[in-house]
């Protein structure tokens, strides 16, 4: 922990983000910036009580309380941000937003394509308000192109970009991703885009617009498979594929997820080469492992189904953590398939990864931290996500010079 009297500096101190981001694909990006000290001002619609972000009132919940201030996912993705409300259907709301943009470095959003433009704040208008503004928009198919008007959420992005297809076992439907991998990852690309634009502006004074399409970011994650297609003409949709518990590039065998003792317990084992096989065989210590037929990678690949059966027969009665221990000691890549409670609460390698933040309504809650330790400018997460309009007095007062009376009047008038 940092000494409160001598805190280390924040990498992004002084950066102000006028933030319309929600869900995870957007909110995840500005969470990173906020953790490194950017002032992220999250703007929500008072009329809909911020419910555009479907996570606002959705579980998990810390206790029996329900409602827009108690969504566990919303808190997780919005720590360290300030929250204000603005009704952009009103002229006064638009004036206040204009003032806020004038004092901000970036405007960020992940609405459907064209929404911010229709609200009167397209890039051309943003530039009028502040010529060096950075505007980063993030949606499923981007702001231009034949599908720009199509609606997406994480699983749709993953389906259309090939990620769902590439995850599964032969003769089965696609297994896909059991969560919105591309909401997380779209957020990472959005954070990179914001940082790249901030660096460029700091060096040149020039702002810009970034059109991020989550489907395109996802398509970049299939590099070798796409080159196998464009260079060799070999499609990923072919007999025997996908088989994503195996490895193609490079080929390895055995390589898979094998059953262990207990209910739904599994272990992953990967023999990278013949040396790994020579380390694995004595641990299994069964007569069949001495058969020279398994000694070479080519032979193991040719007989991979039978090999997997034999490895499964060995793992099936064993504890997954015992297998992990023995194979790691032997130098073979191996990991138990860890359940959430195991990796969160009982894994020394995730210590410090789950900070506890204080949320004004929920109280103390643990959240996802960040997997990078910075020696000079560490990340911080102590404040929970903002309640709806929690920082109206602070932001409208400190940045726009409004008095508490002015803010109360705006609330009366339905502007905030």
């Amino acid at each position, binding site marked *: 922990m940092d000494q409160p009297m001598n805190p280390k*500096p924040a990498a992004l101190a002084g950066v102000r983000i006028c933030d319309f981001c929600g869900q*995870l694909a957007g909110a995840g990006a500005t969470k*990173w910036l906020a953790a490194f000290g950017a002032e992220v001002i999250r703007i929500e619609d008072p009329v809909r009580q911020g419910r555009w972000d479907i996570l606002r009132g959705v*579980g*998990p919940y810390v206790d029996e309380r329900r409602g827009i201030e108690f969504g*566990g996912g919303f808190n*997780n993705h919005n720590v360290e941000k300030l929250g204000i409300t603005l009704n952009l259907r009103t002229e006064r709301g638009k004036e206040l937003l204009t003032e806020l943009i004038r004092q901000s470095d970036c405007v960020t959003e992940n609405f459907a394509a064209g929404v911010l433009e229709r609200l009167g704040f397209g890039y051309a208008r943003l530039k009028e308000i502040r010529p060096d503004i950075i505007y980063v928009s993030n949606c499923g198919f981007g702001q231009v192109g034949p*599908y720009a008007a*199509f609606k997406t*959420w994480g699983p749709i992005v*993953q389906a259309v970009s*090939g990620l769902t*297809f590439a995850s599964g076992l032969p003769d089965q*439907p696609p297994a*896909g*991703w*059991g*969560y919105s*991998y591309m909401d*997380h*990852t779209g957020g990472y690309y959005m954070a990179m885009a914001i*940082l*790249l*634009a901030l660096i*460029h502006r*700091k060096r040149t004074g020039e702002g810009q617009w*970034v059109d991020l399409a989550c489907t*395109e970011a996802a*398509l*970049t*994650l*299939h*590099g070798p498979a*796409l*080159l196998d297609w*464009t*260079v060799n003409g070999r499609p990923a949709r072919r007999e025997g594929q996908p088989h994503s518990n195996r490895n193609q590039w*490079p080929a390895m065998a055995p*390589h*898979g*997820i094998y*059953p262990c003792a207990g209910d739904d317990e*599994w272990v992953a084992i*990967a023999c990278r080469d013949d040396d790994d096989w020579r380390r694995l065989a004595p641990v299994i210590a069964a007569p069949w492992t001495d058969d020279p037929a398994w000694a070479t990678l080519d032979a193991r690949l040719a007989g991979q189904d039978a090999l997997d059966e034999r490895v499964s027969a060995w793992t099936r009665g064993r504890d997954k953590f015992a297998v992990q221990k023995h194979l*790691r000691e032997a130098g073979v*890549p*191996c990991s*138990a*398939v*860890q*359940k*959430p409670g195991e*990796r*969160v609460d009982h894994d020394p390698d995730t210590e410090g990864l789950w900070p506890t933040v204080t949320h004004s309504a929920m109280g103390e*809650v643990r*959240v996802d931290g960040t*997997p*990078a330790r910075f*020696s*000079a400018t560490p990340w911080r997460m102590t404040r929970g996500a903002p309640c709806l309009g929690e920082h109206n007095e602070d932001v409208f007062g400190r940045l726009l010079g409004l008095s508490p009376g002015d803010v109360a009047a705006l609330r009366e008038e339905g502007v905030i």
Partner: protein
Amino acid sequence: MSALAGFRVIELANERIAFAGKLLADMGADVILVEPPGGDPARAYPPFLDDVPGPERSLWWWHYHTSKRGVVLDLDRAEDRARFAALAASADVLLESEPAGRLARLGLDHDDLRKLRPELVFVSMTPFGRGSANAQTPVTDLTILAGAGPAWSCGYDDHSLPPVRGGGNQGYHTACHFAAMSALTALFWRLSSGEGQFIDVSMHAASNVTTEAASYSWLVAQQTVQRQTGRHAAIVQTQETQMLCQDGRWVNTGVPPRSPADYAALLAWLRELKLDADFPELVFLEMGAALEKPITYDRIGVDPEATAIFAAGREALALIAANVSAHDFFIRCQRRGVAVGAIYSPEEAFEDEHFRARGFQTRVTHDDLRRSFRYPGAPYKMSATPWAISRRAPKLGEHDQEVFGE
């Protein structure tokens, strides 16, 4: 111009961190890839150009090392260590994923290099983070994704089938995303402070915080999600979302229809396909189309009429899917405002008209082969500092003279 023009990045070749270097190189950084004599082992990774192996023919290598220059250094030799130190002293960022302790033994770790170059942003990306008791534990993408959570959430309703590791080296990619975000954050700070720093990225931790509700359901409520076929792992089982189309391809149907407009659209579509006569639940669709407002989830399973309408909507979608191609299903639903997706293979997505129209396909010249090839393109469209592949991946030692002659 490029966002990272003028920044120099030294990358110690390792399959785990290659993508982080590419993310910076394609944005204009001068990334110098340092390989050992004989080349990095990943040069032997398939697939190969025309399926013929060779150190300059790996498509894996081509993809992950675009826009970089390449040099060879034998860090076990004092002379080359001095060259490496000089190179690091000229750099803004160093990316490494070396075996634990190796750089310290060579006198090239952060403590050594910062004396030569206090401004250096030193990014170490290792399986479990520096200082872990597992620092010597070997890993692959599979074992990272198994231990860190993603595999637990992916797979099938049938739990006699194993959890599934999502394809495409995503465990490595996720760690590289964090390495790149870290490098950019530290570079931004350096522009005002003038100071470098040491950044310790754990691959295991990176995937641990990339599991959406699996982690926070536990953190908040100590609940454990369970994997399901092609949809979110959940505490309580949810309805299937994937449907099989006439062409044998699958679609993800997203959120099932609940609004009068949805039901009216389904009715019209069934009639157009002349499937209405074969659809016994037609009357419920008609009732759905006549509703005054959408069905709310709390009525499903409680109110018999709402339940029957909701079920008929799903049945209608399945019947339509079985009679059209996945592409048609996707386009027609989306044009009616229903958020569904075709489950494309990577090449089907790559060739799709939308991505072509946006210019995603990028041509890269291989001067040595007198050919050019189509590569995956920009992850983001930046108006002032566009993404670009500035050169094909380097051949072994291709830039030794150029770099060390500087």
